[in-house]
């Protein structure tokens, strides 16, 4: 061992009744890295995120987190060890307010056992929530029911719910999809600067190469379930295979 990795996959593979959605994925991530995952639709990006965070069990291969084998753990166990995620389609509590969404996330992250029988409306947690809502620029929407929010706002809420537990590794599945062009950079500025401050390792799936170029240290490109390129953005975006299979020109 020459270097320590926070996250490492070895020969990771996933197939759905014969269809191979991920094959031979070997990725090592260093602490604090910001990684962009790119690839055409159906390339296997979401499957990769799902395997790391325990939503899907790999057919074979190994996932290690801080040297510990976490292959096939449950989503909530992933959350407990600090591997958290957001979703391509925002997964939030639609009938509740923004604040309630975050208060629930916060209390589940900070409390356990009988503490959960205490009132949800806790002054200390409420203040912490307000801080996060402020950081993610959705404080003005605190008391709105989530189903009335724009896609962009929901994405921000989804991400803020994933970070309340101060994760070590955060996987964001298309944080800017369904978000208007004007909102895109705003959201990523907010998210990446907040996460850089806390030193969180981030892997995010992104289709917009301008965003990739601007924010990431490293690019991992997927094509038909395989990693076809793993390099810094300056190099990756000029790679022949990436141009052919991802950028499609």
């Amino acid at each position, binding site marked *: 061992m020459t270097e320590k990795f926070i996250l490492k996959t070895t020969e990771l593979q996933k197939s759905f009744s014969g269809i191979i959605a991920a094959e031979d994925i070997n990725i090592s991530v260093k602490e604090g890295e910001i990684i962009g995952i790119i690839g055409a639709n159906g390339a296997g990006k979401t499957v990769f995120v799902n395997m790391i*965070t325990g939503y899907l069990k790999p057919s074979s291969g190994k996932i290690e987190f801080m040297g510990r084998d976490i292959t096939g753990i449950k989503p909530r166990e992933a959350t407990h060890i600090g591997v958290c995620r957001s979703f391509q389609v925002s*997964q*939030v*509590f639609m009938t509740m307010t923004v604040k309630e969404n975050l208060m*629930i996330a916060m209390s589940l*992250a900070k409390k356990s056992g009988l503490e959960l*029988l205490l009132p*949800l409306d806790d002054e200390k947690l409420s203040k912490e929530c307000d801080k996060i809502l402020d950081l993610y620029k959705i404080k003005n929407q605190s008391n709105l029911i989530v189903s009335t929010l724009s896609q962009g706002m929901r994405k921000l809420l989804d991400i803020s719910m994933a970070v309340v537990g101060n994760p070590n590794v955060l996987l964001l599945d298309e944080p800017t999809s369904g978000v208007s062009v004007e909102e895109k950079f705003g959201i990523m500025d907010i998210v990446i600067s907040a996460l850089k401050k806390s030193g969180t390792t981030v892997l995010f799936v992104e289709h917009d190469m301008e965003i990739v170029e601007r924010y990431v240290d490293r690019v991992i490109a997927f094509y038909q379930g395989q990693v076809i390129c793993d390099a810094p953005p300056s190099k990756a975006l000029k790679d022949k295979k990436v141009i052919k299979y991802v950028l499609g020109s």
Partner: protein
Amino acid sequence: MYYGFGAYAVAMCQKYFGMTDIFLRFFIAVAAAGLLGFALGFILRRYREIFFAMLSLAFSMVLYGLLAKAEFLGSTDGMSISPSTILGYELGRFGLLYFICFFVICAIVFAQAYLRSSLGHLTTAISDNEIRVEYLGYSVEKAIHIKYVISACLAGGAGGLMAASLGQVDPDSMVLWSVSGELVFVTIMSGLGNILAPFMGAVLFEFIRTYAFELAPQAWQMIIGGTLLAIIFFSPGGLWSFFQKLNFLRKKNND
């Protein structure tokens, strides 16, 4: 089912241990129903919606069958319950009423506290989005199980108190699926808006049933069914949402 189980727990403790103390009766009913709920919860927590309902119904029919066949529990005739006592003194009708009110208030306070807690809020969260709850690090099945046991305890306590106040337990009026149906009726009629709603709903239900029975001894079920239909048509959120709407309109008029 838990309602009947609580009632029968009271009956059995009287038969085998001579237990008639109202506090003991209440707690035995709560504990017995809670234990049954805990055990069955391991199976039920894996199911949702109609499957959950049908499986619950199946369990209650099994319990009904067992009680109707159990001769040592009086089969279909059931058993009579002697008057409740407190510290050895017999409680009169009013004494019992006071204690029942006391337990009801305890139940309301507890339920209110639960609904305000983080765990209580998970009910809505789970019905909105189970995946998110799991990713927040909490087991959806565990939350459902806890809530199920709490509901079982409340229903069991109610059954225990009902046994004490009727002076009688029997399978037909306490465990049969139509009893569960009545409770569902009360819930639909009152709506889910507030803890007090089902209490009002229950009173109203007894009222409707009594008068329907006097008016039309042969067809009182039709009147009850008609009421339910009317509520579902005109106020799908139950009576509580009806009151909320009235309130809303009044405020609007005042403005």
